[in-house]
């Protein structure tokens, strides 16, 4: 409260006493009036005073206004006035314009401020204080959130503005309250769907504030489909040609994605990278580059960079880079790169963006190497860019961007490194066109220190972690002035270092020398041949020792440190091939000329330099001014790696060195032992791999076998089923239903056959008796002339029997065929099983296989058993068949007998006929004899009898006639 009084005191001169009184009266009315209209008028009046008497209205009316929000929620008009008033006291309009440019916290004072600034700060403080008072009750914020659900424009709009203002003043606290209120964030997201542009646009500003520095809210906003909606709005508004709304959307997108890997992942997985591509279809039709368009495009490029930033996890960056190539975004960016008329800062940012899209991604780097500028003749983009890098007239930031691009092109790109170095080698040099190598050499030795530095660093990147190229580059010879022999590139670099003062250069001498020394250090580290090359020139070591030991000014200290590093590299990577410059001799030299302590101190100058740590932070070369361009990011890594080991190497005495040498020897022995072991391990590895492969094939074989077994099992089951069906059929054939047992079946069948036989025999006997009867009959007939018709029925009976037999035989045959089919299948199954068993024999040492084998043999046994069964069945079948054959032969015998009988019957019939004929004759004779006897007048006693015999057929008639 003290604060308020202070501020009031300060402003009292401006505030009329009548104003304060009026405000007090209005507040009373708001608090006590029972009429809504009254309260509404009072709040409206407060609103109109709230700008002029901000302090007074705020102090006196805030609580009343909050109460209005709570109690008068049904009247949107009064709510609107209250919200407007609260907005006015928390946020002054002028402040609103200003805040955009300042990202830092609103309360910030460092320098002695100008009077206007003091005034502004005071007003900011007022806003902060009032907003603090407002959010002291978190329910007030929750209340405001519910207010935002009100569709009425007069409520929603001031509500949005008020919440935005609160967020600006008390960001973290308000964020916290919104985060814990149910659906808080989600409700705010709905603002983007409002059809009234003002609300949607102010909603964007609100969300910008809401998402500032709060990862949890950023994620919820993303979850609520923010990406989709924002990208839609950007498209609707005409992408880069759109107005400030596009800018606001882009700023919000940046908030959501920057340093938020979860959201980045969501953005990538939602295929939103693909939707960025059309943003960059600006091509050559640069009808105009409005300030808004430049801003929009700038933010769009930044968004791309956020997704592929070198600080992201390598995996995440790699997948985004891949997506950017696949959807053609990289290609689109390269088109901008080569287009004409693109504003310099857009071009610069595009170069930076392309850099990060290709960094460490082979596919993208290869694509970039293939891009040509649409010039005549077409030149590689890389060459065109390098031309800008070594061109003094180009803007500094652009040159830095090109260097970054070149670095990113070569980062983890051995192929690219080789291609760049090749353009300098005598065998592959192309004299007809400008090459990257030529441009770099030109830059290295130009009169512009910035070009020197950039070219040196660029060339260093072509050698980074690449021993082959370090050695290749040693072959490069340069033609100097006429008549003099060519000089190696390595030597030319040291020459410039040592003669630095003789050429007049633009820019800073230090920059040139630092650049060249960094190149030499990079080149010679880890490359003993390059060290030998360097030491071979008698002038080089004295130059270095002189530089290090001299007492030079402040700005030369870095050069001294780098010289110490280079000398250290000459010791550390020395293979002792030059007698004058062995490790030992160089160390003695240091001790004598410089002093160990002094040397180490000078070496330490590098990391102590104020610009060192900044360069160590990130790969992009970003310098506030050209003269700050001293350290390369990759180089800082090298220093970190070497400083310690060189210090150690220099400090070691010769005895220690000897000891170390010995240790090294034993180590080497150890090494050889280790190598042996390694060899062994490698062999074993190979064996293991082989075994693993075997295991794999065996496993798959096992699987196959298991499959086969399953198949076989099912086949066997099928066979069993078939077998059972056969059994059943067999049972039925024999006239019996389901007899389960084979033996039983056979017995029954035998019995049946026997019965049949018996039947046949009976028939036979019957026939025999019939025959006998017939015989007697014949005999009778012979004797009496009487016939028996019975014998005639024997023939059809016999035919039936034959038919039956025939069909039985057929059935037996088909069954026999089925059985042999079954047998064949069984045979097949067996051979397959045996084959499998053979295969599994190979894997006898593996338990799994053994287990399998066991199962297999069980299977085989089962199969055998079944086979056995089938065999015995077949046997019994054969036996039955025999019996059947026997029965058939019996039948045949019977048949012959029968036919004999038939014949006999026929014969006897014939005999009968004959007899009948005879009888008839005799009758005739008797009749004629009778007639003759009659004629002779003789009486016949037997006439009736004879008549009856005579008229055999008309017997009944006769009798009837007799009856009548």
């Amino acid at each position, binding site marked *: 409260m003290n604060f308020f009084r202070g501020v009031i005191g300060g402003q009292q001169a401006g505030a009329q006493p009548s104003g304060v009184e009026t405000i007090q009266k209005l507040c009373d009315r708001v608090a006590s009036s029972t009429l809504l209209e009254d309260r509404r008028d009072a709040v409206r009046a407060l609103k109109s005073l709230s700008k002029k008497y901000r302090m007074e209205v705020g102090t006196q009316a805030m609580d009343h206004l909050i109460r209005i929000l709570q109690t008068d929620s049904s009247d949107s008009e009064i709510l609107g006035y209250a919200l407007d008033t609260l907005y006015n006291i928390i946020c002054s309009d002028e402040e609103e314009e200003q805040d955009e440019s300042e990202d830092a916290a609103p309360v910030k004072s460092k320098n002695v401020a100008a009077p206007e600034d003091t005034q502004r700060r005071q007003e900011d403080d007022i806003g902060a204080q009032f907003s603090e008072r407002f959010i002291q009750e978190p329910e007030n914020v929750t209340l405001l959130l519910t207010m935002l659900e009100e569709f009425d424009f007069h409520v929603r709009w001031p509500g949005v503005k008020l919440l935005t203002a609160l967020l600006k003043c008390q960001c973290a606290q308000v964020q916290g309250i919104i985060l*814990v209120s149910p659906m808080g964030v*989600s409700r705010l997201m709905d603002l983007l769907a409002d059809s009234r542009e003002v609300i949607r646009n102010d909603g964007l500003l609100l969300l910008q504030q809401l998402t500032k520095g709060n990862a*949890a809210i950023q994620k*919820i906003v993303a*979850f609520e489909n923010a990406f989709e909606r924002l990208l839609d709005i950007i498209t609707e508004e005409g992408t880069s040609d759109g107005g400030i709304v596009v800018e606001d959307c882009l700023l919000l997108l940046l908030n959501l994605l920057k340093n938020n890997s979860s959201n980045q992942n969501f953005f990538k*997985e*939602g295929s939103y990278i693909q939707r960025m591509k059309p943003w960059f279809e600006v091509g050559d039709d640069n009808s105009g580059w409005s300030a808004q368009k430049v801003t929009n495009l700038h933010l769009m490029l930044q968004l791309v960079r956020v997704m592929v930033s070198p600080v992201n996890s390598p995996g995440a960056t790699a997948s985004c880079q891949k997506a950017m190539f696949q959807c053609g975004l990289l290609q689109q960016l390269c088109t901008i790169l080569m287009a004409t008329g693109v504003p310099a800062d857009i071009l610069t940012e595009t170069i930076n963006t392309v850099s990060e899209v290709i960094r460490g991604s082979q596919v993208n780097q290869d694509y970039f190497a293939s891009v040509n500028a649409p010039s005549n003749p077409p030149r590689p983009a890389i060459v065109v860019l390098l031309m800008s890098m070594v061109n003094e007239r180009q803007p500094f930031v652009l040159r830095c961007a090109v260097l970054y691009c070149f670095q990113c092109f070569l980062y983890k790109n051995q192929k690219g490194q080789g291609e760049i170095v090749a353009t300098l080698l005598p065998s592959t040099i192309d004299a007809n066109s400008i090459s990257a190598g030529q441009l770099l050499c030109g830059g290295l030795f130009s009169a512009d220190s910035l070009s020197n530095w950039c070219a040196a660093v660029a060339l260093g990147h072509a050698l980074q972690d690449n021993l082959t190229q370090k050695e290749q580059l040693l072959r490069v010879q340069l033609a100097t002035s006429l008549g003099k022999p060519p000089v190696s590139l390595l030597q030319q670099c040291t020459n410039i270092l040592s003669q630095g003062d003789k050429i007049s250069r633009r820019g800073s001498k230090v920059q040139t020398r630092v650049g060249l020394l960094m190149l030499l250090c990079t080149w010679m580290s880890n490359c003993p041949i390059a060290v030998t090359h360097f030491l071979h020139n008698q002038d080089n070591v004295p130059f270095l020792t002189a530089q290090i030991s001299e007492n030079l000014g402040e700005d030369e200290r870095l050069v001294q440190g780098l010289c110490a590093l280079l000398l250290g590299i000459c010791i550390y990577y020395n293979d002792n091939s030059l007698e004058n410059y062995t490790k030992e001799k160089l160390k003695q030299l240091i001790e004598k000329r410089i002093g160990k302590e002094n040397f180490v101190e000078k070496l330490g100058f590098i990391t102590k330099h104020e610009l060192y740590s900044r360069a160590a932070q990130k790969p992009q070369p970003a310098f506030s001014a050209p003269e700050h361009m001293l350290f390369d990011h990759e180089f800082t890594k090298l220093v970190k790696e070497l400083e310690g080991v060189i210090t150690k190497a220099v400090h070691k005495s010769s005895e220690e060195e000897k000891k170390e040498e010995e240790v090294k020897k034993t180590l080497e022995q150890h090494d050889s032992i280790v190598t042996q072991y390694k060899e062994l391990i490698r062999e074993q590895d190979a064996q293991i791999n082989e075994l693993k492969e075997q295991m794999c094939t065996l496993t798959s074989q096992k699987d196959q076998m298991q499959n086969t077994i399953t198949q076989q099992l099912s086949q066997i089951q099928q066979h069993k089923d078939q077998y059972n069906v056969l059994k059943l059929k067999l049972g039925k054939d024999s006239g019996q239903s389901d007899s389960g047992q084979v033996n039983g079946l056979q017995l029954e069948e035998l019995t049946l056959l026997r019965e049949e036989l018996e039947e046949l025999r009976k028939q036979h006997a019957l026939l025999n008796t019939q025959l006998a009867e017939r015989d007697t009959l014949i005999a009778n007939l012979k004797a009496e002339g009487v016939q028996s018709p019975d014998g005639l029925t024997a023939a059809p009976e016999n035919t039936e029997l034959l038919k039956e037999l025939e069909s039985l035989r057929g059935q037996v045959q088909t069954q026999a065929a089925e059985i042999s089919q079954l047998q064949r299948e069984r045979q097949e199954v067996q051979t397959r099983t045996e084959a499998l068993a053979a295969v599994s024999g190979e894997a006898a040492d593996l338990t799994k296989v053994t287990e399998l084998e066991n199962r297999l043999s069980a299977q085989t046994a089962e199969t055998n058993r079944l086979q056995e069964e089938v065999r015995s069945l077949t046997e019994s079948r054969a036996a039955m068949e025999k019996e059947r054959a026997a029965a058939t032969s019996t039948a045949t015998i019977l048949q012959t007998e029968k036919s004999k009988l038939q014949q006999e019957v026929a014969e006897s019939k014939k005999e009968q006929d004959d007899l009948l004929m005879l009888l008839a004759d005799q009758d005739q004779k008797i009749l004629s004899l009778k007639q003759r006897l009659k004629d002779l007048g003789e009486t016949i006693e037997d006439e009736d009898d004879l008549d009856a015999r005579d008229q055999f057929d008309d017997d009944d008639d006769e009798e009837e006639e007799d009856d009548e």
Partner: protein
Amino acid sequence: MAYAYLFKYIIIGDTGVGKSCLLLQFTDKRFQPVHDLTIGVEFGARMITIDGKQIKLQIWDTAGQESFRSITRSYYRGAAGALLVYDITRRDTFNHLTTWLEDARQHSNSNMVIMLIGNKSDLESRREVKKEEGEAFAREHGLIFMETSAKTASNVEEAFINTAKEIYEKIQEGVFDINNEANGIKIGPQHAATNSTLTGGQGGQQAGGGCC
């Protein structure tokens, strides 16, 4: 790349039950033995195939710790599916299911498909909650149920896929309003072209699939 549908999932449940591990196993086929406490929410995604259709799953893995509960609540409404996870070796995580379920039911849309998951089924020797208990709880509350192991990957695919199948069926039945993205479902570019015939064509398509 192109998908027919996109479903949003959330994974909820007490801290340490293995939510993040389940997601990691599903998206990366890896297991993380150390408890890397989730702060807030983490995102993961994967494509699956159901009924011959590509379906993109976007999954939000939430923090189980009490202090993050209000953040977790912000994710219920927009999700089409939820995996509610407990640890079969810790009965308290099972006992808390009711609270979780109440929270979910209160803040989600009513059609959200909930899959109950008893995780760490590989730790049979330390089991404190019987499978039958999980089944009973699920039956009682109308949830689908499954025991999983994020360590051995057992049933992990199934858990995510079966949830998707359930959602897919609900779409076929017309229960979900697929045109309202707030339900956690989005029609993919594959479908968008035939969008106009969607309601009519859907049933026909389904019948066609049935007779093949």
